């Protein structure tokens, strides 16, 4: 019986020490990641300006003009 209670005390010791070590290890890692993040600038957002205008431009065509073109096409086809 005594040996089991001794073992239990040992196991409790390992538990406390183990959890402590795991937490310390991973906390140091958190600090490490934070330091590395400071020295590594965020990845530059890949150039996205100065492309889109064209589709918007077509949408901005004057509706009257569109109507005129459409009717012209119809007449041509007829």
């Amino acid at each position, binding site marked *: 019986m005594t040996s089991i209670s001794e*073992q*239990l005390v040992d*196991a409790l010791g*390992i538990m406390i020490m183990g959890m402590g070590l*795991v937490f310390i290890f*991973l906390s*140091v890692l958190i600090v490490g*990641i934070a330091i590395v993040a400071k020295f*590594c600038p965020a990845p530059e957002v890949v150039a996205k300006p100065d492309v889109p205008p064209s589709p918007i431009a077509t949408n901005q065509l004057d509706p009257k003009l569109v109507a005129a073109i459409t009717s012209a096409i119809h007449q041509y086809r007829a």
Partner: protein
Amino acid sequence: MEGLMAFWAETGIAHFEAGQLLMMGVGCLLLYLAIARGFEPLLLLPIGFGAILANIPNAGFTEEGGLLWYAYHVGIETGIFPLLIFMGVGALTDFGALIANPKTLLLGAAAQFGIFATLLGAIALNLVPGFEFSMTDAAAIAIIGGADGPTAIFLASKLAPDLLGAIAVAAYSYMALVPLIQPPIMKLLTTPAERSIKMEQLREVSKREKIIFPLMVVGLTILFLPAATPLVGMFCLGNLMRESGVVDRLSKTAQNELINIVTIFLGLAVGSKLSAGEFLRIETLGILVLGAVAFSIGTAAGVLMAKLMCKLSGGKVNPLIGAAGVSAVPMAARVVNKVGLEANHQNFLLMHAMGPNVAGVLGSAVAAGVLLAVLG
């Protein structure tokens, strides 16, 4: 007639013992779970078949010189197979989510409480007549709570080789049962309001950070916990091959062909430890029960830690992601995502859960290193 008698004496029917038949039944059960139910088929299928092969009378598979004997001695006794698998897992793992939100490492650490609590539980089980677990046995059983197959096999092969079969089967079975075991615990410990918390989108992580990360982990392991370097070192090698981008061929091999080949032999070799004499013992029952307890405590500890982080951060952390702190990549993260979606249909937690999930892999490797350092 004499020839016929000699043939009869060599047949399986003449030599079957009840235990062997029972273990073949266990093997068939594993095959059923793998094929019909899709539970971790990659491992349970070879393990199940290995169990059948190991219990064939007169086949000599597991005797010295047999195929399974070699597979076990070359791959598992030396610790080579689990380490090669760990390298493949490293090559498969993207640490981006973890680097973007490093605080989730604490969740991976908290979930390891399952391991150490079970260590206590395994020793306490000695009070029940019929159980006699030594401290090293208890440590090898407790690591099931890390929910990491290769780590469990590695530690068991070092600390308690005669319990390896039961430990491996328990570890992989519970990993397959993650979607059944975890959700009730997660729901019990959180309120619906907490479950529906949405988290901020993660920042982009640069390639340089991803390359430095495995090197940093290895560096810390070398400094503080050399006993964990076999596991952590192979894991980081795989991850560096992936992130460096200059050895795509090696990275692909580690992720696919190599890990597949090793998985076949690892499964067979673990199955070979499921022979009637070694498996049909009262200890096996204890290991299965303790494994489930370890797993549940780990999940609960992760969720509670995440609740604490939620309170401290003013409600920015969804406590569910703590459950992913037990490794079981990526199953645990998927379960978190699913439970999160049940509470809030717009809430996608998968990427947030991947952080604690991969942190759990590191955490259980560190915990294994601590146990090896203290008891090995």
